């Protein structure tokens, strides 16, 4: 159960990014998780919501893109999704050892929304 630490790292990265846009709010963060990354998406979502609640990032949406394991065939250069651990190239039948993706644990994007002038005014009057 290390999803709490992972969720915390995602929120820290969003906070860091959000500082570059002082007049905007982060609304959504996209992460890419490979099937070999040993991350449980539901546990991550749970931790993410628990950690962001009642903070500046409360309500931030988490979008998770699950990435399958892909191998590339050394013989015919075909890249293919490995299903049920079957590493044989679907084109030429060669046993393809080269794994090209599937262990991602990456931040893909942050979506930010400009503050509306009225909300800016409210903030400055507080």
């Amino acid at each position: 159960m290390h999803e709490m630490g992972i969720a915390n790292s995602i929120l820290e990265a969003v906070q860091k990014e959000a500082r570059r846009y002082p007049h905007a709010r982060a609304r959504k963060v996209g992460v890419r998780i490979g099937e070999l990354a040993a991350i449980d998406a539901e546990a991550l979502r749970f931790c993410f919501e628990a950690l962001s609640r009642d903070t500046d990032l409360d309500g931030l949406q988490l979008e998770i893109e699950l990435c399958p394991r892909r191998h590339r065939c050394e013989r015919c250069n075909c890249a293919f999704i490995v299903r049920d651990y079957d590493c044989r190239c679907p084109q030429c039948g060669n046993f393809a050892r080269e794994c090209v993706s599937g262990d991602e644990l990456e931040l893909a994007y942050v979506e930010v929304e400009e503050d509306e002038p009225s909300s800016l005014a409210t903030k400055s009057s507080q």
Partner: protein
Amino acid sequence: MSRVVLQQKVLSENDRIAAHLRERFQQNNVLCVNLISSPGSGKTTLLERTLEVLPHDARVAVLTGDIQTENDAARLKRFGFPVKQITTGGTCHLDARMIERHLEDWKLEDLDILFIENVGNLVCPSSYDLGEAAKVVILSVTEGEDKPLRYPSIFFKSELMVLSKTDLLPYVPFNLEEAEENARRVHPGMEIVRVSCQTRIGLSSWLKWLDGKRNAYLQLKAEPVA
């Protein structure tokens, strides 16, 4: 709404420290091996058997991780090599910062091999790079043959699988060939050794792997950068 593309690792801070550690290990010719398994698969015992056969002047050290207690460090210190316990206080894995902190008062130039015994867990340690040259996963014959399929990440990321407690094979329904086949389905070409730390059968194949790994590591370093 505007989208800012990031394309960065979630654990970029850990990876940054790990890359720095890896560089220091390389500069000082230290082979760092990260041992990972479920709790009770025999990481500490494998290290005991390893340390007991090494010459007394071998330049070897161990960092051993656990959630609580100094028990593993006490077991390993008997052999006279530098050993330090990392107690994580609840965290289920070691991270690069813990390694960096616990290496502070050791001189890397005095070492040839650094063993890191991770916290017993097949899931979380696989996400954290510690700057090691190789991860080694240990699977004991009292666990299931399908463990590589159920926990693919760590078997995929480890260079070597040590099948441990093979002396118990007569008493447990464990099919060695099937376990090895499963490991190689997840990780084509994975190296595998079978070891009993009780009878010491197979221990030499583990030591041979370690020796070969160290030689390959030094050779790789000696090759000029293209």
